[in-house]
């Protein structure tokens, strides 16, 4: 899956909403405390779990009491949960955010911010699931999710505060880790924001370990996310996920966690001209993260080619 950029007007509207929240909080120092955001927006937060059998039995029991036809086929509920891969919810009528208690704490922070944005982006009110008069089209769902993600990033990374710090730091994984700690966000989301704010060609790859892929790994779609800076998307749009994953396998070490390696990589632009990028890869237990930053137009032979 590749990151997408919103139109300027949509981004500006969402940014304005985030600015108002931060202003209402007195433009605090990072990391942003989400309990204060909930207080300002009068939002309620709760947790749910659907992974253990006793919880499911309880849910089915309650659906039976409510006389729902679904309980005649309880497996349908299991299938739906698995297919939907529900991580978090926002219920506007109750102003309540529900988070999956099965997610790691750091990821819950991102999901809470994402749901918070659903509560403040005005047009999302009319694009909710569960409405018995209308259903949201798949394309619209994807757009709405992108908008909430953009806003969550701008909120958790406190708008230009992050951009300023990122632009005055070296562009490497160590800096990403440092910024991740300063803003209290995951390394993955920090890496994502870093690349999106870069003016030069750059990319981030979120993937399985090239030597120890997980059970759900699909060789046909080897990357979980490919985040491209605007300049990269414009000039290097032809680069494939498979080629990128193959390169990771060529320089990454056979260690499971921590730094996996780095290398100079040659990438062809849309005109077929070769450019050199510096790739650096790290594994944080959950994912393998790669940062690729632009070096120069290729003048000399390099170790690997895409």
């Amino acid at each position: 899956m590749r990151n997408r950029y919103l139109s300027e007007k949509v981004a500006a509207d969402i940014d304005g909403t985030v600015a108002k929240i931060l202003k209402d909080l007195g433009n605090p120092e990072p990391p942003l405390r989400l309990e204060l955001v909930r207080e300002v927006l009068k939002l309620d937060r709760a947790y749910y779990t659907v992974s253990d059998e006793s919880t499911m039995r309880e849910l089915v029991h309650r659906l039976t009491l409510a006389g729902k036809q679904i309980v005649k086929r309880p497996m349908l509920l299991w299938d739906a949960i698995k297919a939907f891969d529900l991580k978090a919810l926002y219920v506007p009528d109750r102003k309540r955010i529900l988070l999956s208690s099965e997610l790691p704490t750091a990821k819950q922070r991102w999901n809470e911010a994402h749901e918070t944005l659903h509560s403040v982006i005005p047009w999302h009110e009319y694009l909710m699931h569960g409405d018995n008069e209308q259903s949201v089209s798949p394309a619209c769902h994807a757009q709405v999710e992108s908008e909430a993600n953009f806003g969550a990033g701008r909120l958790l990374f406190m708008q230009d505060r992050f951009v300023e710090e990122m632009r005055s730091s070296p562009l490497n994984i160590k800096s990403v880790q440092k910024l991740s700690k300063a803003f209290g966000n995951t390394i993955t989301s920090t890496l994502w924001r870093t690349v999106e704010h870069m003016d030069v060609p750059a990319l981030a790859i979120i993937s399985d370990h090239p030597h120890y892929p997980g059970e759900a790994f699909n060789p046909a779609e080897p990357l979980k996310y490919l985040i491209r800076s605007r300049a990269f998307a414009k000039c290097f749009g032809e680069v494939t996920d498979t080629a990128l994953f193959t390169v990771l396998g060529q320089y990454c070490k056979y260690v499971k966690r921590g730094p996996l390696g780095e290398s100079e990589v040659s990438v062809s632009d849309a005109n077929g001209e070769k450019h050199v990028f510096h790739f650096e890869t790290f594994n944080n237990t959950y994912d393998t993260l790669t940062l690729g930053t632009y070096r120069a137009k290729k003048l000399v032979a390099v170790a690997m080619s895409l």
Partner: protein
Amino acid sequence: MAEMNMNKNAEWLRKMAKDEANAVVSVGGLGVELANAHSRRQEEGDPLNRTVLAKLVEFRRRSLGMKVEQLADAAGVEVAELLAIESGEVSSPEGRTMFQLAQVLKLPPKKLMQLSGLTNVRDRRFDEAALRFAARSKPVEALSKEQREAMEELVKIMVES
């Protein structure tokens, strides 16, 4: 009770054409367009709704005495985007655009979202009130209709917990 007279004579048509700066007078045009759109529905999604949306936005804009540029400015949308909507060329406008136009034109946002194809009208299978929610999940197309309804019931129970 007053009745709308739809049998316009030639003089009336000439007058309307002059008022519209000699543009093509579209008496009956909407009906023809709707009929044509209906015949194309199966192969191109739902252009019928796009045509209705186009005419509705244009009609309301003119009713409010606004030029395209004025409406675009008031709603904070691009002129080109508004022109595309009014000519029925936009197949997937942004939710923000529809929301902003609804605010300025004083139209129900939910209806504009439906006409624009952002949402689809559903069969009413349940009589009870719906519980709306935004979900951080896989795309909705991953679910069958039955699964989607099961998920919606599950969410209701979770919220009440």
